[in-house]
């Protein structure tokens, strides 16, 4: 009993010292106060803890993102081209298949290949691959999570960041094609980070949501993989919106990804601002998606590692 009391007093003292710096009781020894304290009974705060953990592990996240990118490049002959191969091949195939059908119906001011590649980059390469990587990150790094006290959200966020880096690399061939086809690069290219960061928040939210479910049920990832393959069809990635019957257009516009796509395309090649509602919808869905994902993740977090 006596020992238990000591422990509690010690803990309260640490709290008191943290709360009121400079007013440490004299009996406290210097080196105790400088040490980190892990208390399994410390209360959990749903949102604060996730941000705090990500901030505290910033250098680890940076290291993991760089590792994620370089591991892929180092191992292969194609190097950095691996990242670009997927969107370029997808675009090439779709261009061959669809160019005759869609290029006459779409916006005549922009070449079909630019329209297509910009859509594939944002939806397929950034969104779909990012959500899948982030959603499978906990299962994938279970070896480490079982041995080291690393907050799991670090891995989900790392995967989202790596997807963003790949997307940024993918912008170069797009800009190159824009130059070659005479579209040029408008000044609004400087605003591309806006939809990019909004997308990062959305991917992180969905990634955390899926990751916490995937730990409990192993078929979740298969299900998600199928759903993600559909996204390229659900928004006008390769077909023009005008081809869709008016009655159905509302279903496409209700999809938040549509707003990201419109805003991104406006900035990257059209040199124009999308309608205000697209910006509002994009921002709202990013914030709501992020907070919902963090909430579910925090609720299902308790002893996640026991299930890995």
């Amino acid at each position, binding site marked *: 009993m006596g*020992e238990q009391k000591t422990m509690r007093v*010690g*803990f309260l003292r640490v709290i008191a010292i943290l709360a009121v710096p400079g007013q440490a009781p004299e009996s406290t020894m210097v080196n105790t106060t400088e*040490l980190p304290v892990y208390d399994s009974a410390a209360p959990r705060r749903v949102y604060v803890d996730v941000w705090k953990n990500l901030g505290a592990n910033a250098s680890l996240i940076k290291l993991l993102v760089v*590792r994620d990118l370089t591991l892929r490049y180092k191992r292969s002959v194609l190097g950095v081209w691996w990242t670009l191969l997927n969107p370029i091949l997808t675009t090439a195939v779709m261009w061959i298949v669809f160019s005759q059908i869609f290029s006459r119906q779409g916006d005549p001011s922009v070449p079909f290949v630019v329209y297509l590649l910009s859509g594939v980059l944002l939806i397929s390469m950034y969104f779909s691959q990012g959500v899948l990587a982030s959603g499978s990150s906990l299962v994938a790094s279970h070896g480490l999570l079982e041995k*080291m006290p690393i907050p799991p959200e670090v891995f989900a966020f790392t995967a989202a960041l790596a997807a963003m880096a790949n997307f940024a690399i993918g912008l170069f061939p797009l800009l190159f094609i824009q130059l070659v086809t005479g579209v040029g690069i408008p000044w609004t290219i400087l605003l591309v980070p806006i939809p990019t960061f909004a997308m990062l928040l959305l991917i992180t939210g969905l990634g955390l949501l899926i990751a916490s479910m995937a730990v409990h*049920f192993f078929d979740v990832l298969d299900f998600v993989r199928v759903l993600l393959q559909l996204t390229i069809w659900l928004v006008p990635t390769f077909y023009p919106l005008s081809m869709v019957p008016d009655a159905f257009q509302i279903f496409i516009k209700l999809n938040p990804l549509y707003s990201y796509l419109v805003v991104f395309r406006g900035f990257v090649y059209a040199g124009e601002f999308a309608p205000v509602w697209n910006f509002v919808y994009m921002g709202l869905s990013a914030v709501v998606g992020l907070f919902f994902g963090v909430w579910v993740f925090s609720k299902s977090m308790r*002893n996640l590692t026991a299930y890995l």
Partner: protein
Amino acid sequence: MTMVTEPPVVARDLRLAYRLSRSRSSTLKEFAVNLLKRQVEYEELWALDGVSMDLEYGETLGIIGPNGAGKSTLMKVIAGVLRPTEGRVVVTGHLSPLISLSGGINVEMTGRENIVLFGTLLGRDPADMKERVDDIAVWAGLTDFLNVPVRNYSTGMQARLAFSIATDVKPEILILDEVLAVGDTAFRRKSRERIDYLMGGGTSVLLVSHQMNTIRELAERTLWLDKGRIKALGPSADVVAEYEATT
């Protein structure tokens, strides 16, 4: 030299339940079906069932017990990898956990990359770790293998690397879960020297092992776990003798 008043690890009434299950749904489909049938039941296995212990400043505490006694679970709870279902543990100080041999080692990466990554996982600055690479490799005797993926290392080499990284800065608490078992005599002698050195600087060690002579050699006190409960806790010689008498 100031004295630390709190023991580095204070654990009280720790209980930890793993949910095992006949009907544990491992797929979403099964879960939905079970939910409809109102059969979402879990069978709980108490891996830890009321464990209270202190790890004193600068001591080496041995942890022994048969397989499935809860030794590794206790280490994971102290390391903060698992949260206790009931009870509380307070850990004061930097903790280097070496759980199941390789700790934070990634076999796909080279020795050099692992030193930086594992060090960062332990809360150190990546730039500092890059400067420490050579010293760490020298101690582990792996200078010639720094640029080889760890996949190609032997288990003994992996253990040397992990141990060398984890003990590079004096952590206040070091967890060694079966790490010393795979090393050869030379590695054990060197680790012994380093553990002695760390203990001299105030590091406390939790040493899980099935090798009773390692425990007798290194640990002053020993905790005997059985089915998640403490069977005995006291001077190593007594506890080990008692344990050996039963097996």
